[in-house]
C-alpha cells in the first residue's frame, strides 16, 4: 500500500481513484459529482486500510476497503490495468454536508482525526489518518469549508503551483520524502554529487596536478627500485654472464640516488599537501558557514543547531580526505599495480597468474573483516557517546546531584556506562587481533605459491634467480594496498554523505529573502502596522491568528499575555526573522517584505528574552550592533541601560571578558548589557521583549525612567507579563492564543473588565497581600 501512495492533488480534486468507481456506481453517485477526493490510511474504526473521503455538493462519503489480490498479482497488474484490481469495501459512510461545520484536524500522538460538528454542536468523526496525510487533510478541510460557505472550491493557481513545487521533485515528479529538505534520493545520483564537489575542488587544480604528478613519480620509483636492487643486481651485476658484471659501486650509486630523489619528492609532496589541506578545509568551512548564516531562522528550528557546526567541521575534513588523500592515493596505487602486473606478465606470464590467484579471495576476506570491524567500531562509538553524555550531564547538574545526595547513584550510572564502553572496546580489539593475522596468512599462501613454483622454475633453468626476487617484492606491493582499497569503499560512502549534506546546505534557499528592488528608508518615522497577520511555525498550529493593530510614531505600545500566547512571535515577525503566512506588516506604510533588510534592522532594534552575549569583552558586546561607536557613546548607552554601575565595579570594567569560559554575568546584568547594545544602535523602533524580567523592580524602574526620557520621537514596543513594566505604555494590546481579544489604554481595559482587568486584579491582590496598596 505504501509503495504506491496516492496523493491528494488540490489542483485536481476530482481525480477519483479507479477502484472506487464501481462502489460509486453501485450507490448511484455519478463520478462528475465528486468535488473532492482525498486518501488516508486509517479508516473510521482505526483499521489500517485504504480510506477515501469524497465530497459532492451535498454529501461527504467515506469509503474504506482494501485490495483483495495477493501482493504478487497486484504489483503485476496495478500499473497496466488498474481496473483489474478488486477493491473490497470495508465500510461506507455518508454524511450530510449541510449538517456539518467546523472541520478540523485533531492531532493525536502519532495520528490525527478529521472531525466536524453537527447541527447540535456534537462532534462527528469523519475519518482517521496517520500523520503522513496530515498536510493533505489540512488542505482538504480548508476546501470543505469553502465548499460549504461559497458552494465552490477556489483553488488558488499560484498557491497550487507553489504547493506542487514544494512537495514534488521537479525532475522525476515523485514526492519528496521531506518537504523541508528538497532532496530526491532518486535524482540525487552519486556522480552529480562528486561532480559538484569536484567543481569546488577544481579551484585548486594546479596544486592537485602537482600532487598527482609527484605521487606518480613516487610510484614509478617504487616500481623500478625493486627491479634494480634485486633483479638487475643479481642477474646483470653479480652474474658472470651479466652485462654489468662487477659494477657494484654503480648499482649502489643508482640505489642511493634513487632513494635521495624519492625522499626529495616525498618531502615536496608533503609540503604541498599540507598547504592545500589547510586551505581547502578552511574554504569549505567558510562556504558552509556563510551558506548557513544566509539562511533564515526557520532552517535552524528544523534541525539541531548544536550538531550543525560539528557536522560542518567533520564534513569538511571528510571531503578533504576524499579528494586530497583518498582519491590520489587510490589512483597512484592503481597505476602502480597495473604497471607491476604488466612488467610481471612480461617477465613470466604463468607465475604472474599464479601469484594473483589469491588476490580476489584476499579482497573479499578484507571486505568481510571491515564489515565486522565497522559494527564493532560503531558500537564502541555509540557507547562512548553515551558515556560522554552522562559525564557532561552530571558535571553540569552537579549542584542538583549534591543537593539530593545522589553521588553514589551517579557513580553507579557512570560505572555501568563505562563498563559497557570497556566491553565494546575489548570486543573490538579481540576481534581485530584475531582477524587481521588470519587475513595476513592468506598473503603468505600466495607468497608460498610464488616461492614454490618460482624456485622450481629457477632450478629447471626456466627463470633467473633475480626474476624470482623481483617477483616476491612485487607481490608485496600488490597485496599491501589491498587494505586501503577496501577502506576506500567505506570512506567513499562517508564522503558522499558528507558531500550531499554540503550541497544541501549550499543549495538551501532561505525563505526570508530581500525583495529584488527593496525600498530604502534611511530613517523611518516609526509607524508600525499589523494587518490581519497570520503565522504558524509548522503548518498545523496557528501561532498568530488574524492580528491587526497600529502603533503611531513615538507611541509606546505594551503587549500583555500569558506565556506562549505569541508575544515574542509578534516581535520576531516585525524584524522579519520569520515570514508571515498571510496579512501584512508595515513600517511607515511600507510592507516589511519590500523593505531593504539593512534598513529594516537598522531602524528596529530588539532586546529579546534570550540574551545572548558573545565571547569577548563587554565593550565588544555592546558595540556589536555598531562597531564604529565611540567609547563615550558606549558609556552613555550603558548608563541608560543601567549597566554602567555594575560594569564599572568589575576589576576590568568594560574590558572584562565574558561568555563561555570567562566571567559569568547574572541574568539581570546580561539583560542590561543587551539593552545597551540595542540602544547604541539608536533605533527608531525599539522592541523590549521581557527585557527587564530578570531584574529587581527597583533596577527595572530606573531603566524605565531613563527609557521614558529617551522614548521621545521613538516607537517602543514592550512585551511583558509583569504589568508594572507596562505602566508607561500609551496603548496596550492583550494577546491570547494568537488572537488580540482586547486593545486600548490601561483605563479602557480596566473598565472593560476582561482579561486585562483580571490580570491586573490578580497582580494587585498579590501586592495587597504583602501590604502594598496603590
Amino acid at each position: 500500500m505504501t509503495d504506491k501512495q496516492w496523493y491528494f492533488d488540490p489542483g485536481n480534486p476530482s481525480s477519483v481513484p479507479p477502484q472506487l468507481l464501481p462502489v460509486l456506481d453501485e450507490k448511484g453517485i455519478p463520478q462528475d459529482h465528486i468535488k473532492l477526493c482525498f486518501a488516508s490510511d486509517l479508516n473510521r474504526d482505526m483499521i489500517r486500510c485504504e480510506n477515501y473521503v469524497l465530497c459532492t455538493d451535498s454529501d461527504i462519503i467515506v469509503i474504506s476497503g482494501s485490495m483483495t489480490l495477493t501482493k504478487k498479482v497486484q504489483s503485476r497488474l496495478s500499473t497496466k490495468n488498474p481496473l483489474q484490481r478488486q477493491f473490497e469495501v470495508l465500510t461506507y459512510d455518508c454524511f450530510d454536508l449541510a449538517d456539518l461545520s467546523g472541520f478540523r484536524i485533531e492531532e493525536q500522538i502519532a495520528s490525527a482525526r478529521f472531525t466536524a460538528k453537527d447541527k447540535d454542536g456534537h462532534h462527528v468523526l469523519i475519518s482517521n489518518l496517520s500523520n503522513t496525510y496530515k498536510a493533505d487533510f489540512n488542505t482538504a478541510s480548508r476546501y470543505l469549508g469553502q465548499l460549504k460557505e461559497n458552494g465552490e472550491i477556489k483553488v488558488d493557481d499560484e498557491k497550487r503551483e507553489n504547493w506542487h513545487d514544494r512537495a514534488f521533485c521537479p525532475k522525476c515528479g515523485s514526492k519528496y520524502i521531506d518537504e523541508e529538505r528538497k532532496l530526491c534520493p532518486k535524482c540525487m545520483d552519486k556522480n552529480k554529487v562528486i561532480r559538484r564537489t569536484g567543481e569546488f575542488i577544481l579551484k585548486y587544480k594546479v596544486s592537485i596536478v602537482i600532487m598527482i604528478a609527484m605521487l606518480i613519480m613516487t610510484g614509478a620509483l617504487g616500481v623500478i627500485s625493486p627491479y634494480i636492487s634485486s633483479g638487475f643486481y643479481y642477474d646483470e651485476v653479480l652474474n658472470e654472464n651479466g652485462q654489468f658484471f662487477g659494477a657494484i659501486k654503480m648499482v649502489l650509486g643508482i640505489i642511493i640516488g634513487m632513494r635521495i630523489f624519492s625522499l626529495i619528492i616525498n618531502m615536496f609532496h608533503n609540503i604541498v599537501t599540507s598547504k592545500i589541506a589547510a586551505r581547502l578545509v578552511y574554504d569549505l568551512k567558510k562556504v558552509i558557514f556563510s551558506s548557513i548564516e544566509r539562511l533564515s531562522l526557520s532552517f535552524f528550528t528544523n534541525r539541531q543547531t548544536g550538531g550543525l557546526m560539528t557536522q560542518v567541521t567533520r564534513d569538511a575534513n571528510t571531503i578533504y580526505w576524499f579528494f586530497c588523500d583518498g582519491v590520489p592515493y587510490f589512483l597512484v596505487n592503481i597505476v602502480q599495480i597495473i604497471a607491476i602486473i604488466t612488467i610481471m606478465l612480461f617477465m613470466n606470464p604463468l607465475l604472474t597468474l599464479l601469484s594473483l590467484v589469491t588476490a580476489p579471495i584476499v579482497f573479499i576476506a578484507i571486505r568481510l573483516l571491515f564489515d565486522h570491524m565497522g559494527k564493532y567500531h560503531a558500537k564502541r562509538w555509540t557507547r562512548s557517546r553515551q558515556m560522554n553524555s552522562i559525564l557532561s550531564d552530571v558535571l553540569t547538574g552537579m549542584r542538583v546531584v549534591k543537593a539530593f545526595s545522589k553521588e553514589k547513584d551517579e557513580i553507579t550510572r557512570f560505572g555501568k556506562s563505562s563498563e559497557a564502553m570497556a566491553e565494546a572496546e575489548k570486543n573490538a580489539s579481540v576481534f581485530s587481533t584475531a582477524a587481521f593475522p588470519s587475513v595476513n596468512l592468506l598473503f603468505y599462501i600466495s607468497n608460498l605459491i610464488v616461492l614454490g613454483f618460482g624456485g622450481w622454475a629457477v632450478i629447471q633453468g626456466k627463470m633467473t634467480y633475480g626474476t624470482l626476487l623481483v617477483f616476491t617484492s612485487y607481490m608485496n606491493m600488490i597485496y599491501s594496498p589491498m587494505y586501503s582499497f577496501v577502506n576506500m569503499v567505506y570512506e567513499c560512502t562517508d564522503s558522499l554523505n558528507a558531500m550531499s549534506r554540503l550541497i544541501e546546505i549550499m543549495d538551501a534557499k532561505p525563505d526570508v529573502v530581500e525583495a529584488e528592488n527593496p525600498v530604502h528608508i534611511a530613517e523611518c518615522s516609526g509607524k508600525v502596522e499589523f494587518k490581519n497577520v497570520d503565522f504558524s511555525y509548522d503548518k498545523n498550529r496557528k501561532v498568530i491568528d488574524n492580528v491587526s493593530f497600529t502603533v503611531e510614531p513615538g507611541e509606546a505600545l505594551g503587549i500583555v499575555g500569558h506565556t506562549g500566547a505569541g508575544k515574542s512571535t509578534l516581535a520576531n515577525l516585525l524584524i522579519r526573522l520569520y515570514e508571515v503566512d498571510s496579512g501584512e506588516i508595515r513600517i511607515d506604510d511600507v510592507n516589511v517584505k519590500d523593505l531593504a533588510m539593512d534598513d529594516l534592522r537598522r531602524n528596529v532594534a530588539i532586546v529579546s528574552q534570550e540574551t545572548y552575549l558573545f565571547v569577548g569583552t563587554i565593550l565588544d558586546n555592546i558595540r556589536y550592533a555598531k562597531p564604529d561607536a565611540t567609547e563615550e557613546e558606549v558609556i552613555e548607552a550603558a548608563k541608560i541601560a543601567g549597566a554602567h554601575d555594575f560594569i564599572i565595579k568589575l576589576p576590568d570594567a568594560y574590558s572584562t571578558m565574558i561568555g563561555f569560559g570567562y566571567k559569568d554575568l547574572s541574568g539581570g546584568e546580561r539583560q542590561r548589557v543587551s539593552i545597551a547594545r540595542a540602544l547604541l544602535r539608536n533605533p527608531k523602533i525599539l522592541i523590549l521583549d521581557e527585557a527587564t524580567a530578570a531584574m529587581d523592580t527597583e533596577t527595572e524602574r530606573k531603566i524605565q525612567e531613563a527609557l521614558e526620557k529617551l522614548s521621545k520621537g521613538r516607537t517602543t514596543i514592550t512585551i511583558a507579563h509583569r504589568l508594572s513594566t507596562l505602566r508607561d505604555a500609551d496603548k496596550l494590546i492583550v494577546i491570547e492564543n494568537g488572537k488580540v481579544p482586547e486593545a486600548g489604554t490601561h483605563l479602557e481595559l480596566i473598565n472593560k473588565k476582561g482579561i486585562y482587568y483580571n490580570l491586573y486584579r490578580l497582580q494587585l491582590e498579590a501586592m495587597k497581600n504583602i501590604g502594598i496598596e496603590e
Partner: protein
Amino acid sequence: MAEQKKIEKTALRDVVAVLYITKDNAEFVKDNDFVAMTLTAPNDEGTMETKTYDRIFLHRAFPFDYPYAYISVLDADSKELGLIANVDDLDKEAAEMLRQELDRKYYTPVIKQILSLKDKFGFSYWKVMTDEGELSFTLRDTFQSLMKVGGTRIFVNDIDGNRYEIPNIEELDRKSFRKIELFL
C-alpha cells in the same frame, strides 16, 4: 525547659486536591463516535455540580508505564476535569469504551520484524512487518529518531510524525536485530 511540641507536617495532598474520576462520580456514554461524560464534582465556587460533557479527551500521564492508568480527562478546551486512577476500576462497559478510545488516540503500530533498512544520504528507509501489516517509512537522522525507553523498548519516529514501537529489542529475530543494531 520549653516543651517541644511536635507539629505534624503538611502533606502535599492537604494542599492540592487532585480530583479522581471514579465510577461513583462519573458516567460514560457513547456520543456519536466519541465518549461523553457526566461528572459530579465541585465547581469553582466549591459547590457540587453535575455536568455533562458531550466529548471528553483522554491523555495518558505516564504513557510508557501506565497505558490505562493515570488518565487525565480533558474537556474540549483542554481543561483538565480530573484524573482516572485506573480505567479498569470503572464499570466494565465504561472501561472498555475508554480503553478503545485510548488505543485509538495512541495508535502505534508494533514492529514485529524489520524486512529491510537502508541508510542513504542521511535518511534511512525502512520496510517493516507490524501488527498492522507491512509498512514502509523514512527517518531523518536515524540515531535521533529512535527513542529508547527503559533499556529495551524503542519508539521509532518517522519523518511524517508517525510513531512505531518495538516493545522489546532483544526479542526481535536475529536478522532484524542486526539491521537496527548499528543505530542503537
